[in-house]
């Protein structure tokens, strides 16, 4: 017990305080979101705040268990835990309870458990364990692909439930790979793809293609700082475009302008390649490849958007981009959510005074849209406070991760940071209309036992690892 007592002395107090603050504020907001005059007892088990109270008590117990467990247990059993949770993710597809068309929940008596929430720390442990030995090899394709597979596998199983929102969370683990030595080009490519995806839907393809080409030339000039090769490149491209236009007039007669532009860019590549080769101008080659990749991507997005995405996913994106306004259908949630948050003003309407909240204008307000209550009743000041709490916690966790002696602990720490970060950013971004609606909870705030427990385990394993950072794991 003395050893355990010393663990408690060494655990990071700031993180624990923020954690406690968040669950208390979360509970207060859930109380406000489901509040009505008929049920005011705090422990009313027919009401969500009553249940959440129990989940919170349970989560504190779980936190204690997570802390008192020997840190070597996490290290050695990482793959077992990961494997067990993958198994649960498979089982839930067959044995899960169908709620809103998704099989994401196990029903055990009156308790519903969502394995997805637990898969997050399991995957984090496995990723940390795998990279612990091979982190310096992340630039090797095989290592990179294996690491990616570790978190793409649960994401894939979750997509099959189907629960796109929760699956997106796993993409955040690319941040861990970035920290651990993945080529930034891969990361930038990923981000660029997402940005281009949205741009393609907003802007005319021809302008976008043209813009990308201009951007590429600008980048090229920036890299080589010489006019001659850039001007030559532009000349080659113009000649190619004129040639293609002529060819189209004479032979194809039906090519669209952006197709001409695309083929011209490809053709002129042959001319460039000689230059790249002779001058060993690798950077220019990279820029060129980026350009071609972007062009291919941009021209395939329309196809993806129209043929691969499901109608409701398409609609959510269209609404976010203002291409469509449907205030009673899919846009309803977001619209009401923005009204809730916006109506809070600078100082908010006061606790339990939010009319939007009180009268249930926002669906899923105690779960995914809990931030509406914060925004409406506590105003901009409240929003600022909550965001500040997350930023402080995340930066604190970076600090903790960086002081680890073991690679395993640090990598696991970054997993925690990435997962908490994406939840925080996407959840508030969606509630305020900045991002499309992706139904994921706000850590420690949203109603729900599984999510609360999942996040608690995720965080407290790391706090335990940090508390015993002076010990050797192996």
């Amino acid at each position: 017990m003395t050893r355990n007592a010393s663990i408690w002395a060494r655990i990071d107090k700031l993180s624990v305080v923020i954690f406690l603050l968040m669950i208390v504020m979360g509970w207060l907001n859930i109380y406000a979101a489901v509040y009505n005059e008929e049920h005011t007892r705090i422990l009313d088990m027919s009401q969500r705040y009553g249940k959440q109270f129990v989940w919170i008590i349970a989560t504190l117990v779980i936190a204690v268990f997570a802390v008192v467990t020997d840190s070597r247990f996490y290290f050695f059993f990482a793959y077992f835990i990961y494997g067990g949770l993958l198994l649960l993710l498979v089982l839930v597809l067959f044995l899960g309870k169908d709620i809103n068309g998704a099989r994401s929940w196990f029903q055990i008596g009156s308790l519903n458990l969502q394995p997805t929430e637990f898969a997050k720390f399991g995957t984090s442990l496995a990723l940390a364990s795998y990279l612990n030995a091979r982190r310096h090899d992340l630039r090797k394709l095989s290592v990179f692909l294996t690491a990616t597979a570790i978190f793409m596998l649960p994401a894939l199983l979750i997509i099959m439930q189907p629960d796109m929102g929760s699956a997106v969370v796993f993409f955040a683990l690319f941040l861990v790979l970035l920290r651990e030595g993945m080529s930034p080009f891969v990361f930038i490519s990923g981000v660029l793809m997402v940005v281009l995806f949205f741009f393609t839907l907003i802007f005319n393809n021809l302008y976008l293609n043209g813009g990308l080409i201009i951007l590429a030339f600008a980048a090229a000039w920036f890299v080589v700082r010489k006019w001659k090769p850039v001007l030559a490149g532009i000349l080659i491209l113009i000649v190619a475009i004129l040639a293609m236009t002529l060819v189209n007039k004479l032979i194809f007669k039906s090519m669209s302008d952006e197709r001409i532009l695309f083929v011209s860019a490809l053709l002129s590549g042959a001319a460039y390649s000689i230059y790249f080769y002779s001058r060993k101008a690798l950077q220019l080659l990279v820029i060129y490849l980026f350009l071609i990749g972007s062009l291919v991507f941009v021209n395939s997005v329309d196809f993806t958007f129209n043929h691969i995405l499901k109608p409701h996913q398409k609609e959510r994106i269209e609404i976010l981009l203002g291409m469509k306004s449907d205030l009673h259908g899919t846009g309803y949630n977001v619209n009401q959510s923005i009204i809730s948050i916006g109506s809070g003003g600078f100082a908010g309407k006061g606790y339990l005074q939010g009319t939007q909240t009180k009268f249930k204008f926002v669906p899923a307000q105690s779960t995914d849209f809990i931030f509406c209550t914060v925004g409406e009743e506590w105003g901009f000041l409240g929003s600022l406070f909550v965001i500040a709490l997350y930023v402080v916690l995340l930066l604190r966790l970076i600090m903790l991760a960086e002081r680890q002696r073991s690679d395993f602990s640090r990598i696991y720490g970054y997993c925690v940071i990435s997962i908490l970060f994406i939840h925080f950013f996407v959840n508030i971004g969606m509630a305020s209309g900045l991002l499309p609606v992706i139904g994921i909870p706000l850590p420690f705030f949203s109603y729900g036992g599984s999510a609360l427990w999942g996040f608690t385990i995720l965080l407290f394993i790391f706090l335990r690892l940090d508390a015993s950072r002076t010990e050797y794991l192996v």
Partner: protein
Amino acid sequence: MKDQYINRKYLIGSIIIIAAAALLVRLFIIQVVEKTYRLSADNNVLRYVTQYPARGLIYDRNGKLLVYNQAAYDLMVVPAQVTRMDTAEFCRLLGITLPSFRERLRAAKTYSRRASSVFLKMIAAEDYARLQETLFKYPGFYVQPRTLRKYSRPIGAHLLGYVSEVDESLIRKDPYYKSGDYIGKLGIEEAYEKELRGKRGVKIFLMDVYSRVKGSYADGRLDTVAVQGQDIISTLDEDLQEYGELLMRNKTGSIVALEPQTGEVLALVSSPNYDPGLLVGRVRSENFSKLNSDTVFRPLFNRALQASYPPGSTFKPINGLIGLQEKVITPFTMFGCNRGYLFVSCHAHSSPLDLKGGIANSCNSYFCQTFRRILENPVYPSIGDAYMSWKRYLDQFGFGKKLGIELTNELPGLVPSTAYFDKYYGKNRWKALTVISMAIGQGELGTTPLQMANMLAAIANRGYYRVPHIVKSIGNSRPINEKYLKKNIIGIDSTNFESIIAGMEEAVNGTGTARVAALKDITVCGKTGTAQNPHGKDHSVFVAFAPKDHPRIAIAVYVENAGFGATYAAPVASLMIEKYLKGQITNKDMEDRILNLNLIGQ
């Protein structure tokens, strides 16, 4: 081993800070910069429910209730709350067909799925009682109480007017009205709309997203109470009005009875008419178009105010009065009559006659010569000036202009100006003889029955009238418009009236044209007339007041296509006078004859 990527912790930290900053900027924009969301939130949850006030009641001059309210119920529906239900049973309950049910529900859905809209308008109270017992079985449906007009007797449709729902164009014109409001149309309902309608109240409720009422907003501090409309005491005598309508049944024409001193309308009958109860509730629009499209009887047409006839012989007293006032004749001026004057013929009577005899026997010659003297009066430099002077007297009697009764559809009638004759005949190309037919109330003259009754009131009052009106008081205290209390003095000395009145007395009670109208114990003074009708048989006209001293009733009766004034109009007037002054009828034979008379062949 040194960590070569350690600086990437700054990259991760920056990503977190940039993302948080993006969220803060977004939140700052929607929470602090944009103000519109606050308004949206208020609209989301506050529902302003109109509290409809009860419309004011209408009483007759003796305090008998003419128009009151009955409860009716609008069945409302919130489509989003409608669940699976026994549609057939529901339709049977409401007495509508299944396609009609579907159509109504579809219309409501088109309007809004979450807000309530009217499903079925104006369900009668007895149907509502049946409905209420089972309404709980049909979630999404509820009733909103409204009021409908109810009439204690089926009379006075033209006077009372009706109430209908406001239409789009009116809502645009008058911002007071909102869709679903009622507004008075025609008659008292229209003229006193502002008093009758009362003041709408509003109750503000907090609603949740399913439009369910969650309670009253701010504990009802911002609610306003509906104020009931003011009651109207009309000048009408319910019994007289009913009797007048009875007498005029199966006849075309009108009766206007006034109280001479006050100008109060005792009865105003226009026949054919209709039961005001037809224009109430759900059947209103259907019945209205039926009445409106009846071009033969034109029941919506208010003849008492809207029909302009040549006044005929009933106009002779006026010319006599003007002649006296202009001093071109005296009561003792005698004119001979040889069955006519120039091209104006006359009937057989003793000759020559003085003024009194001229009125009593309705001698055309007498008044043609009088009229000629008026127009050829050497006091005036030209015939035009003399004519304008004559026209001024007519104007003082209220001819050729709207008298100003509250009812909106009053016609002004016609008294041509000299310009009219100048244009028609050429300037200086017309003389007294050219327009001589006006001497006996024919020719270009046009007067309404209301104007004729008013003329009689002025004669009965010996020289003044008050503008006829149909409302005695509003509520219990508020006085009516000043203009109805003002004496309109006619520039004719009261002494000049005596010989005219004596002639009218003689006409009824002596040897004159209207002996049929004579009553025991009541001295009726009257004048028969025949309004020429170019389209068919002449109209029978009779104007009278009674008693001779301290007159209490002045009346004008028009029976269309009925020939001489003495035949039908005089008996009708006589019966009306007796009914009003005595409350009962002595001459039952005459009453039966009139009641059974059918001049429109139905």
